[in-house]
Each structure stands twice: as C-alpha cells, then as structure tokens.
C-alpha cells in the first residue's frame, strides 16, 4: 500500500529525526502549582507535548450515591483541546479519551491512600494543550504531581513513559511521527520506590524478548522523569519557604 513517503526517522548512526539518541528522553519542563483555583496542579512539557493537570478534592461526591463507605472515589478525565492536534478535534470526549481516562485513573489509584478519605471524591482533570506523542504518559506524570500538590497522601509518585520500536530499533519516549510509523508502542507507568507497574499497554508487534527490553527501557525513562518530578515538587515548596523567611 503506498503510504505517504516519510523520510527515515533514524539515521545510520542511531540518531533520531529530532537529534536524540535511541535511549534519550525529549527535553522536559515540569512545574507544580500553576493554577489558582485547583487544590493541586501541574504543567508538563515533553518535547512539543504540553499538558496541564488539576486536582480538586477530597470533597463531597456528586451525585452522592457514588460515594463509597470505605474509601475515596478517584475520578479522572483525560481530555484533548480541540487545537492540540493537526486537524481540529471535536471537544466531545472520544472513545480513545474515555479509555485513557480509565487507565490513568487505574494507574493512580494504587498510589493514593484512598482509605483515608471515605465517602469523598478526588477529581483529576488533565488537558492536553498540544499533542506530539506520549500524551497519556505526560498526563499521568502531571496528574500524580497535581495530587501531591493538593496534599493528598500517596505511597509514591506515579511516573509514566513510553518506549517502543521504530524502524527495527528499540527507542525511548516516542514522538508523534515515531509512534505513527513505528512498529510498536508500550506506555508504562511506574511507582519507582515500590517497583510497581500501574499502567501497561501495548500496540504493535514485538517478540517476547523485545517486549522485555522495551519495558525495561521505558522503566529507565520513568526513573529519569521521577527525578525531575521530585525536583519540580521541591522547587515549588523551597520558594514558599524563602518567602516565609522574609
């Protein structure tokens, strides 16, 4: 089938189209506490992917019959802005967005001490402002920071990163063109201190050995982002401390 001819994404020296090495993350910027109204918030920029996350709660559950007697209800909405992609996306939630909202919620749930807040809900909203691959992972990384920023007790930060296979090579943190042309994409979310994988999806085609390598590559990426996450969280509160001193 004559697909649109795309130039090679990885040259013979193993350098990717955006100049990265195979196991290199895109440049990242993470900020915590970026929104005024939310109880907790975070912004993440991963290459051209830009995501905002906000957390409201724990607060009363609406509608009330959804409340659980022994734990907080975690609710999550992953959503893409209409202008975040090449062709305008309808703002109505798509099936893809609904599935991603579910897997993000299930990836954060094991980290949160939900049993501390029975009969309440914690609402997590993530908005993809610009999409260039890896939006579910960036949303998760930002959402867990927003939870921490909201002061919600957690077992660990959840950090997410994808790895995959492009033009026969295993690569970390796929950009949109790499994801589209690539042979496989494996997003992974991880709680580094607990060695726990809380999100794992895959599409594409990988042998079992390749799959094992790809997951380990993604986990390496997660560990790098984890360090950035902690730094971003600390930097917000260090500033606050200095303000108090004055």
């Amino acid at each position, binding site marked *: 089938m004559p697909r649109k001819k795309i130039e090679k994404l990885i040259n013979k020296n193993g350098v990717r189209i955006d100049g990265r090495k195979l196991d290199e993350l895109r440049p990242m910027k993470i900020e915590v506490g970026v929104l005024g109204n939310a109880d907790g918030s975070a912004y993440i920029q991963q290459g051209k992917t830009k995501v905002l996350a906000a957390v409201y709660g724990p607060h009363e559950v609406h509608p009330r019959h959804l409340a659980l007697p022994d734990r907080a209800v975690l609710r999550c909405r992953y959503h893409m802005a209409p202008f975040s992609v090449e062709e305008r996306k309808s703002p109505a939630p798509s099936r893809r967005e609904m599935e991603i909202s579910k897997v993000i919620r*299930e990836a954060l749930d*094991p980290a949160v001490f939900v049993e501390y807040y029975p009969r309440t809900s914690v609402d997590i909203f993530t908005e993809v402002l610009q999409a260039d691959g890896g939006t579910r992972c960036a949303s998760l990384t930002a959402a867990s920071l927003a939870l921490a920023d909201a002061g919600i007790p957690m077992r660990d930060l959840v950090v997410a990163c994808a790895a995959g296979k492009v033009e026969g090579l295993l690569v970390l943190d796929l950009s949109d063109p790499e994801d589209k042309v690539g042979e496989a994409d494996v997003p992974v979310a991880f709680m580094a201190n607990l060695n726990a*994988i809380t*999100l794992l999806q*895959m*599409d594409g085609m990988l042998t079992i050995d390749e799959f094992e390598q790809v997951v380990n590559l993604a986990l390496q990426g997660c560990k790098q982002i984890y360090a950035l996450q902690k730094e971003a969280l600390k930097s917000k509160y260090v500033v606050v401390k200095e303000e108090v001193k004055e």
Partner: protein
Amino acid sequence: MTTSVIAARVKQKQIAQLISRGKRLDGRGLTDYRETQLEAGVIERAEGSARVRLGKTEVMVGVKIEVGEPFTDIPNEGVLTVNAELVPLASPTFEPGPPDENSIELARVVDRGIRESKAIDLGKLCLVPGKKVFVIFVDVYVLNYDGNLIDASAIASLAALLNTKLFNYEVEDGEVKIKPGYTQLPIKNHPITVTFAKIKDKLIMDPSLEEEQVMDARLTITIEKDGKICAMQKGGQGHFTIQQVMDAVRTAQGKVEELRKIVVGG
C-alpha cells in the same frame, strides 16, 4: 461500613487462601480455562457471526459489512470498527444507555488485537482508492456476564471474522455494484487474547465474575500466530511487578495454542 464491603473482604480472603494452595472456587487449576463452546454462523442476516460460551459467560458477535469512505490518511485500506454492548439482559449490573468506559475498553482491547496483528487484510478491501472501501463492523454483544468478557469477546470476534462472507462486487465508473455470490473475508492472522487476574500476588487465568470482583489488577495479552505479542492492556486498581508481567507473558505464550485450536481448528 456496609455489609457488602465486609462481604467482599471475607470473600477475597477465602478466594486468596484457595489460590495460595493452587486451587480455585470452581475446582480449576490456576491456568485452566473454563469450558469453551463455540458456534459459528448463528445469525443468517449478518455477514459473519459467532457465539461463545466461556463457562457461564456468553458473548455473541455479529459482523456486518458496508461500503463506506476510507480514512483520509489511509485511502487504500478498508475500515475496521469494533463496538461492544453490555446489554442489560446480561447482568443486573448492566444498565441501558450510551457505552460506558467498561464497554469502550472492552471494544478497544478487542479492536487492538485484531488491528495490530493485521488479522484482516484491509489492503484487499479497497474499492475505489480514496473514495470507497469496505467497512467491517464487528459488534460484540454480551449476553451473560460471568467474568472475563475480554477473552470471550476476542474469541467470538475472531471466530465471527473467520466465518464472514464478503459479497461479490463490480466497480463500474466509480460505482460499486453488488453481484450474486460470496467470497471469504481475507484473514491473514489469528490473534488470541489471554487475560490474567492478580489476586494477592498470584496470577490466575480466565477469572470468573467472583474472582474479578476481588482481583487487585488485570492483565490482558494478545499473541498472534507467530508467537509475537501484538497488544496488551493492564486494568484494575492494583499493580504488577516486571517479574509478574514477564511470567504472565510466558504463561500466555504456552496457553494460546490451546485456545487457537478452539477457534481456528486443528
């Protein structure tokens, strides 16, 4: 705390204790599937259909084919659409209304297995490039819910596709004319889906509803005919270690042939 919460905890303890001794409530081993029955071609009006019983879980899949427009970025390929309905008659917990996140996830996991393994030769389903292609609608209809809808739906979908007839046609001046007679829908791979439930650090295959209600997390792995992994999905509120994931992948690889025989035969 309501009684239902306490009851669930007692049940989980009991199920977990059994599993730690390698046993399950219904007498199965940890990697045994429930009895699987497959009937193909159950709906004459549909181009393809199948009904699968996995223990008491029952799923029907109907395939309908229409002439439609291709996606603009892949103008020379047919279109595959998978939808799942959790019909209210299948469980007291299913309610009428638009698809909820569970039915969307179910449909998308089944879709991913078929799509990523390239099970349907979509390149052969183009009629007029950029204008007209065959659109394959796979509709998963859950009739009785007793756990592990993903595997039952994936088996039923593959069986229905293998059973699907494509009407003969002729393209004249860009118009598609239907002619008498049928050919088989071109199928070139057989993805098989295996789902594990994790209950207190033990992995079991083909969880029943009782087991699903107490599981910590779920892992679904789809393996194509050459033994490669083509789709995966973690579900549920718990987590896995990398060792558990790799254990699951290797166990799944050993299991898929057994299941593939049920769908594809010998």
